[in-house]
């Protein structure tokens, strides 16, 4: 039976290094299967997050041969087996143990976002063409791979000033919901720091749900912020009428 050699990061907050494991390969096997094999036969304490093993829950994110992936959807037959397969935890988040990282920052950002708020007396009629766009955003499985590859978070560690692609997608889903009545442009600009995104599209490339994060979520939101805060004509109108900028 064919065999693959794995180099899997073992360690915790204090540090660590890759450990080598040899795993037999079966047809259709994915990297997560190999990690489970290692747990069952060689390292029962190897820490891995996973739930559905079907690409629906977004738990098993890691970096396979340096590429951020869902390990449940990364097939062994798509990887070169003439050299070791490396599996590392997501780099943008602090390691807890082995492949498990501390993603709690994401949950804290999420709490800042003003929730869905329909107008009073809404008649609940919506047409498919009006919800298509938002349904794309709601496909997000919160694997946080987009957060992991975003330069603003991964290299510049701007966690304090930036929300990251996942939460621009979430805000876009609320802003473009046909029944929502709130404006979140001020918080996009000030709390989520959307201006820091320089649209390199790294997030879009890694999205396992193939959400067009940059084109369909971030750019339209940036446009809303610009319209609201930097449009010279609107600024003049506001000045004359005395309307506060970006009021909710």
């Amino acid at each position: 039976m064919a065999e693959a050699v794995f180099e899997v990061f073992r360690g915790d907050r204090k540090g660590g290094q890759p450990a080598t494991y040899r795993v037999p390969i079966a047809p259709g096997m994915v990297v997560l299967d190999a990690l489970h094999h290692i747990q069952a036969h060689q390292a029962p304490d190897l820490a891995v997050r996973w739930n559905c093993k079907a690409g629906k829950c977004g738990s098993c994110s890691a970096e396979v041969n340096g590429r951020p992936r869902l390990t449940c959807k990364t097939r062994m037959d798509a990887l070169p087996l003439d050299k070791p397969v490396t599996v590392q935890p997501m780099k943008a988040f602090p390691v807890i143990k082995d492949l498990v990282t501390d993603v709690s920052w994401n949950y804290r950002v999420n709490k800042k976002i003003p929730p869905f708020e329909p107008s009073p007396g809404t008649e609940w009629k919506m047409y498919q063409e009006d919800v298509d766009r938002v349904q794309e955003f709601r496909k997000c499985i919160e694997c946080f791979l987009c957060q992991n590859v975003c330069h603003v978070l991964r290299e510049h560690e701007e966690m304090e000033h930036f929300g990251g692609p996942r939460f621009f997608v979430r805000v876009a889903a609320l802003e473009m919901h046909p029944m929502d009545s709130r404006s979140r442009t001020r918080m996009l600009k000030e709390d989520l720091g959307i201006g820091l995104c320089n649209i390199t599209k790294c997030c879009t490339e890694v999205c396992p749900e193939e959400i067009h994060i940059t084109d369909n979520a971030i750019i339209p939101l940036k446009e809303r912020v610009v319209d609201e805060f930097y449009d010279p004509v609107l600024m003049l109108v506001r000045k004359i009428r005395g309307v506060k900028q970006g009021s909710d």
Partner: protein
Amino acid sequence: MTTEFETHDHDVLIIGAGGAGLRAALGALAQGAKVGVVCKSLLGKAHTVMAEGGIAAAMANVDSADDWRTHFRDTMRGGKMLNNWRMAQIHAQEAPERVRELEQWGALFDRTEDGQILQRAFGGHTFRRLCHVGDRTGLEMIRTLQDRGVQLGIDVYMECTITRLLKDGDHVAGAFGYWREQGRFIVFRAKSIVMATGGIGKAWKITSNSWEYTGDGMALAYAAGAELMDMEFVQFHPTGMVWPPGVQGILVTEAVRGEGGVLRNKLGERFMEKYDPKKMELSTRDVVARAIYTEVREGRGTEHGGAYLDISQKPADYVKKKLPSMYHQFKELADVDITKGPMEVGPTCHYMMGGIRVDAETAKSSVAGLFAAGEAAAGLHGANRLGGNSLSDLLVFGRRAGLAAAEHAGKISNTPIDSGQIEDSAREMLAPFERKNGESPYTIHRDLQETMQNLVGIFRNKEDLIRALEELEKLKERAGRLSVEGSRLFNPGWHLAQDLKAMLTVSAAVTHSALAREESRGAHSRIDHPGLDATWGTKNNMIVREGSAMTLRQSAVPELPADLKQLVAEEK
């Protein structure tokens, strides 16, 4: 030994953060209770995200003749009349309001041409009834409930596992558990506890269930003295993936058949004509699962031991729009383009109809202060669940459990926690570290899965079930001697050692109940007792702990009132 632990106080503690747990939390919050939700994984990853096809609710948006009565009748017939009729009635009556509420909290369902929530056909449902979002309805539901809960301020304890319920006399008083991250202990004091822990599929080898589905809620409730009901009724979903081996068991949504998918054997025969000529592919799950299993056993299976499921007669764009995750799943994991050719599918352990016995109106169990909802509870689905009735179950009875738990909490003062129970729980947790050179929990889990798969599967007989009980005894004994390597820091082997105890308890409950029921009904098929038995049709099996012994008795199925009896008997 003095155990170190942190303590948290809640009026209502909810164990599990899937659809039922989150809806229960919202229900309890609405009553002004202080609510805590504990979940084994991160918030939003619970098994509900894997639900694909839709939420069954008689909204009559597509078929205007639909109403709660028809939904009730479909549910009772699907459950082979073993259902708790009052639960089935409440469920059918309240489901539409629960769906509308989700929409008002921001969920975006697929739409009809006139702007209403679109509904699709599903097995056993007379009308097109399932409100859906493509084939990712569960994700939409859990995100909506999660966002609402976060907004209203529920305390969520993520990656935290409960290993024992604490009691004060006959009343639940709290729960003992541990944080996965550091392995530290945690104690909850609570006036009411809601079990929303889902199912037990991980005791079988081929399953659509995630690692979390180890029956902990049922085992914890059983240990605390609660009755378990209908444990013999384990649903094997007819269509799981069968090839390649790495993906065996992953769910292929019933929506494929709902959208017109056709089943064939290797001879090209549309074999459902033999098993249910009227409903064909949209027969109930028990019937379709047995049909596929029988075709394979009799030599008409596909190359990898399944049946062909084909939706490629529909336009490719339609398939990609209505079944996007199935399209990607087969393309990425099996190199099959489902818009061009058939999928290979076979039965996979999917859902537990049985569970904690509850009161229909309030979801309370037989232990004071303990409630249960969703898959962890029994009664609504009887001997077989209809597709789509699970998501609606979570909403309807999750809400009721949350309301009743909060009301109960309002009536009592805080219950004291006995430190002896805490010390016991801690000692039990740490024991696997102290034993050296024992077996790995992974080996025992693998053997348990083999046992349940081979001896307590779709078709059962007396000899197999007796052998299964013997095997389970041996496994239990081995589990008592296992040891765990490494530290308490995020240690999956240690966690599995805890989960194994729960799986062994529920596996024994399933096997005892299956051995007792000498008939075939719904998902329970006895080769040695192939037909329905009228006497068994009036009884539910109950499992209850007496000392350390698992005991079984029967209880009468609640009799339908005359008007509902007539309703069920009517031909539609």
